[in-house]
């Protein structure tokens, strides 16, 4: 056979292969389920009516609600455990009763008394009462993990009577009810189950609760196959009761490959896809049978933290300059328009406390002026210099996060226009933390995401206080006034007082001593597309990604 013919065949096959791949990936494939005809509209039949199949991206480290504050765990906690209160509807300033039917707060905001709901069963059949609640909170505090940090202010817990419990705090708190309504406070579990599974080296039965549930929630944990799926099944004894048509099984299938999630969603083999690339989202949103469940309240906040301990960002004017040099609208475009430019460390959905008056608008001319004023002059190569040093900085993000990488590229572009050179570094989170602990300074700016808390303190405390170094306060920001005001904000229950404190904090963090560039606010970090037969989801920014599965159902309205 002629050598040229062979080469020709190989080339033809290669080109054909690449072309077919490109074609397949750019067009959605039609679902092939049998169709159900109603008078005006033809819709596919709903597969597995009472099972909710979710394509998830993160696996929790543990299914014990006291173990972490990760979104992956919250997706499970919200449906398996319950707290004393929950946030009312879609806001974060009012509460609905949950395991507590009514409550009072003392005038000094230190003593909180709750009347508990009666006839509530735990998954193991025992009854919930004040003793159980006390035990659960003692367990939360005693296990010393991330969620416990919100409840360290509890001085004592008193069982007043079988269904009345009283918390006395060491300091007054304006956020205690919010902490209880947040998923970190949804830890109420059966003391009987804990004691039965405790061991001498494991007094709180952490090993057992890693994979088993003992809560009061509508679902219990059926199985957890690591690196594969979490399955929840309906708890028949749930105090809220069951109606036909509700979801009875939940399968959270871990699918790390975005292309796979897309194919499964198109075919209807999963109901909800949590991990899709931006390009896939664009294509799928136009497809029939797919709804966009992305909410309109934005609870995720992306900020770019400055390392304020060394040049060039030890200079306040330089930080302001850089905040003017950022073209905020282009970042919204990165998320296909589903986001808002940031203007404050406090996200806009907290309408009571947010103010945009200290925010920055894109103004490269002003940025250039300020940089000149700070002594950074433009050199002949287009970059700025001061005292012989080039304005060259590094931007750090955690490896594998495509979105944050894109943000870095965009920042690089923006800053280039005012003569700043940016180097983009990727590192695993654990490496960065390790280096920071050793006293190293891996970069000049860090991108940080914050999410899911019902109070401004949730977006301030973890990032701008010294105590949060190096976990989230990557830039080692320290400001004496902020250190004083944030605890004051936590301690005050008077709303008007809080609004004033928040105003002052925003002024300091944006203007007087900028801590970051307040880049972007997003509804959720990962967008969520669902098949159009999924109904009933109610979004609350404080509960972030966690779904209210008990209220959801599959079918057509």
């Amino acid at each position, binding site marked *: *056979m002629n050598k040229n013919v*062979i080469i020709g*065949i*190989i080339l033809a*096959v290669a080109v054909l*292969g690449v072309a*077919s*791949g490109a074609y*397949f*990936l750019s067009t959605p*494939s039609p679902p*092939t389920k049998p169709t159900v005809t109603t008078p005006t509209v033809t819709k596919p039949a709903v597969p*597995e009516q009472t*099972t909710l*199949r979710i394509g998830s991206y993160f696996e929790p*480290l*543990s299914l014990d609600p006291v*173990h*972490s*504050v990760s979104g992956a765990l919250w997706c499970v906690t919200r449906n398996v455990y319950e707290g004393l209160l929950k946030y009312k509807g879609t806001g974060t300033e009012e509460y609905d009763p949950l395991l507590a039917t009514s409550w009072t707060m003392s005038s000094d905001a230190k003593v909180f008394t709750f009347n508990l709901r009666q006839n509530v069963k735990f998954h193991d059949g025992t009854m919930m009462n004040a003793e159980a609640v006390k035990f659960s909170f003692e367990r939360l505090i005693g296990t*010393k*993990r*991330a969620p416990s*940090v919100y409840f360290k202010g509890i001085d004592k817990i008193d069982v007043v009577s079988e269904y009345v419990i009283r918390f006395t705090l060491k300091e007054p708190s304006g956020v205690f009810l919010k902490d209880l309504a947040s998923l970190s406070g949804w830890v109420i579990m059966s003391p009987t189950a804990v004691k039965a599974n405790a061991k001498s080296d494991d007094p709180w039965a952490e*090993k057992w609760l*890693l994979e088993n549930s003992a809560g009061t929630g509508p679902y219990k944990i059926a199985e957890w*196959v*690591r*690196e*594969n*799926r979490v*399955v929840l099944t309906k708890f028949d004894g749930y105090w809220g009761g069951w109606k036909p048509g509700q979801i009875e*099984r939940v*399968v959270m*299938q871990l*699918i*790390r*490959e975005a*292309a*796979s999630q897309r*194919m*499964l969603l198109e*075919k209807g083999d999963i109901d909800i896809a949590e991990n899709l690339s931006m390009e896939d989202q664009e294509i799928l949103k136009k497809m029939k049978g797919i709804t966009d469940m992305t909410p309109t309240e934005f609870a995720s906040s992306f900020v770019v933290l400055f390392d304020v301990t060394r040049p060039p960002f030890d200079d306040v004017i330089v930080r302001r300059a850089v905040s003017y040099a950022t073209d905020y609208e282009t970042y919204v475009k990165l998320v296909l328009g589903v986001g808002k430019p940031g203007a404050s460390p406090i996200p806009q959905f907290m309408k009571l406390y947010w103010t945009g008056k200290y925010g920055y608008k894109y103004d490269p001319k002003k940025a250039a002026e300020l940089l000149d004023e700070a002594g950074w002059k433009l050199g002949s190569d287009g970059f700025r210099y001061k005292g012989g040093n080039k304005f060259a900085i590094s931007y750090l993000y955690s*490896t*594998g996060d495509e979105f944050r990488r894109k943000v870095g590229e965009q920042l690089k572009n923006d800053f280039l226009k005012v003569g700043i050179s940016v180097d983009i570094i990727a590192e*695993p*989170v*654990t*490496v960065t*933390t*390790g*280096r920071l602990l*050793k006293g190293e300074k891996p970069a000049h700016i860090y991108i940080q995401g914050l999410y899911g808390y019902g109070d401004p303190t949730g977006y301030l*405390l*973890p990032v701008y*206080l010294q105590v*949060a*170094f*190096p*976990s989230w306060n990557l830039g080692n920001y320290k400001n004496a006034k902020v250190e004083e005001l944030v605890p004051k904000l936590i301690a005050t229950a008077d709303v008007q007082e809080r609004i004033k404190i928040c105003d002052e904090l925003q002024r300091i963090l944006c203007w007087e001593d900028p801590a970051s560039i307040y880049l972007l606010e997003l509804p959720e970090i990962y967008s969520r597309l669902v098949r159009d037969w999924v109904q009933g989801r109610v979004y609350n920014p404080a509960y972030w990604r966690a779904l209210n599965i008990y209220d959801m159902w599959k079918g057509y309205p």
Partner: protein
Amino acid sequence: MGRLNTLEYILRRSITLVGVVLGVTLVVFVISRLIPADPVAIMMGEVFRSDPEIVAHFRKQLGLDQPLPVQYVIYLRQLLQGNWGVSYHSNRPVIVDIRQYFSATFELTFVALILAILIGIPLGVVSALRKDRWVDHVTRIGCLIGVATPVFWLALMMQLLFYSRLGILPLGSIADEPLLFAHPVRFITGLYVVDTLLTGNWPVFQNVIVHMIMPASVLAFRAVAWIMRMTRSAMLEVLRQDYVRTARAWGLAERVVIIRYALRNSLISVFTVIGLTYGQLLQGSWLTETIFNWPGMGLYAVKSIMYSDYPAILAVSLVASLVYVAVNLAVDILYTYVDPRIKY
């Protein structure tokens, strides 16, 4: 007589095996500790306020506050006691993790290897016999494509075609979840295929086989190429030999000549490649596992590295080196059966 020598040989090799494995643990241990990562950070899961008291408490618990040599000695001692440590990420004993993931990978790579052998060797033989004819050319082009095609591209294309467009094969995972729920599997060996067969769980057995088709084919695609090429060149080498000409001159049936004389003598080289191929399959399986959601060792290894899960990383390296050495030993033993001239 030959058998006794072989046993002695195995014993001698086993001692070297221990040395190799120990060396691997030392190297991996040192490297993993040198990386400035902090597993406590990930273990505590997004600590909002990193209470220094809590952090110190966990460091102590994990033994990370001890000097390196002490940590290594503690680790070796625990290994020998059968305690391979607890994974920081899954909070389970690492051995439990490994059992789950290794079984899955073993199943997949074993099936892929069998497929590759069943297709690769005959193709190689045919190619060698029909050298320079169109069969040979087509097979060799196919092999080139097999080796050059990126694994993830092939996997995604197969998913697109067979799942998305045609809907005849499932996307991934070991089995369909509703089926596993309706017919729970009782595990004996930890291998789905074997256990469902042994317990008569027919629906899941069929389902697992169907789920295996795509990932095993993707893995086998490359392996077929290697095995086929080695078979072909070994066969060509052997077919040139005088004794083959003699066998033909004696009037032996062509089939006997090819299989008993030519193929048998080329098998040494082929077995070497099969041994190496198995190593490659184990290595390369992580991409395939990620795309097909096959919860195996490859996936586990990558995850452990991302999370600085020291016990897991060490355990994975240990298992990988053990398997590799064992496979090579097995191949060496097989030589004695294939070639009676080889004695140890």
